[in-house]
């Protein structure tokens, strides 16, 4: 018998962080949080869960990306208050903070535009720091395919974030 209050308390932090980061909104994150554990509950009825952190991370990422896509398709923009603050341990001048907020906004938009498997692989790899092997297990694909998904995701994001790409020394000299 699964002790759900215990599971939620133990892995709730993972789900919250994942959802909150991607959605940048407490209300949406709370909804996503609940959806994550409901999905985990449904899965647990039909299979034994071997890796709870991995499952919660994947489900939270998937649900958050789904919400991002929905929000984008509905033309909604959600900017949380904490977005205006600097990253932990870093001190940035106001213009940089605003610029970074803009970058993150486009990053979310870019992730929402990616095919689901690419977006998921990208989030698991770069936001959740999962290894290729772990991602392969969670997405039920081969490690090589994870590499392909990540390559395609980065290429798409590169185009989406082109405006934020740092200017090279050579181009600065030419200017």
């Amino acid at each position, binding site marked *: 018998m699964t002790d759900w209050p215990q599971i939620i308390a133990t892995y709730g932090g993972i789900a919250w962080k994942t959802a*909150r980061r991607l959605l940048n909104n407490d209300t949406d994150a709370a909804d996503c949080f609940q959806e994550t554990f409901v999905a985990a509950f449904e899965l647990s009825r039909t299979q034994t869960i071997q890796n709870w952190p991995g499952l919660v991370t994947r489900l939270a990422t998937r649900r958050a990306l789904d919400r991002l896509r929905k929000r984008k398709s509905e033309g909604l923009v959600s900017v949380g208050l904490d977005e205006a603050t600097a990253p932990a341990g870093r001190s940035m001048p106001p213009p940089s903070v605003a610029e970074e907020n803009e970058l993150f906004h486009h990053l979310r938009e870019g992730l929402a535009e990616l095919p689901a498997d690419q977006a998921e692989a990208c989030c698991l790899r770069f936001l959740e720091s999962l290894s290729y092997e772990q991602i392969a297990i969670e997405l039920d694909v081969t490690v090589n395919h994870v590499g392909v998904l990540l390559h395609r995701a980065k290429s798409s994001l590169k185009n989406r974030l082109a405006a934020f790409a740092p200017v090279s020394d050579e181009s600065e000299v030419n200017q």
Partner: protein
Amino acid sequence: MTDFDESDFVEEALERFRERSVTEGPSEQLLSLTAERIGALSIQQSESVFHSRRNFMFRVKWFGVATVVGASILMAAAWIGRIDPSVSIAFADVQKQVQKFRSIQYKEAPVVFDAEGNPQNPRAAKAEDSSKGEKAKGTPLSRHLVMGRELERVETVDSDCQVSHIHISDFKNHKLVSLDVKAKTITITDISNNKISVGEGTFVFGKIEPASAELYKELNEIASSTTMTKLPARKIGDKQVVGFVFEKKFEQKVEQETFTETLKRIYWVDTSTKLPVRIDCSVTNNHPAAVAQKLVEWMKYDFVFDAELDPKLFSTETPEGYTVEKGGGLLLRPSAGDNGAGLSIEVK
């Protein structure tokens, strides 16, 4: 040429995004709300789990546990008397149960049943035999004493509560005697094969009735394959009874028209002993004249099983003081199946 790598830029952006601080969470309220939601889902899914093929094994286990628990509850409920035992009674049980007894006594009286099936002739129940010295007027009734399967004594009690006639049937020896108590006469009838000799005449039956007392004959004519309507349990006196309805239809031709006569018997059976407590009988006919004359209804009641009976009560010998009379006084009812149609008289 720049060494700037576009992919590194994207990774760097993602890394910065990852390091971005987020609101502390989840809140205690969110944790508790989610736990409650999962709890509610658990209950819902437990209820619907029977419909899931995937959970077949779970279903089997659950069913097993539920069966054991259910059986325990039923046993407990039966033990404390909260389960209606009539649920498990079949009419075949009643037939078997009656066969176990060597003697049966009961009374039979004409009555009128109300819409609820209660007899509306209170005098029928009050009318007792004259041996108790009761002089109150009562509905004529008959007392039946049955011993074995083949000996039957029927005492007819008139409205003065006096035994007026006694009819003794010895089916084994094919002998029937009728005593007129007041006139002190006796009529002896010999029945053998398919003929009944009465005085100088011989009645020829198309079909010989089974050689057994009326109650057994009636019970035995109900085949196990007969579908009988079961009536809900009720109380008769202090006994919990359940009813079994038996119906038999006969067609009658009157001039050019065919009418239907319906014999109906309701066996009210004690749920604890599986023995009849009362048998309500009626004969109806859809012939207009029969309807105008209302129903013919009677009931058998006051059943006593296995009482000690004196064999002398079934003697077909002529009692002292009685004179033998030729003919008349015959207590024979043609079977419902014959309906009198097969009866003819052959004068020797």
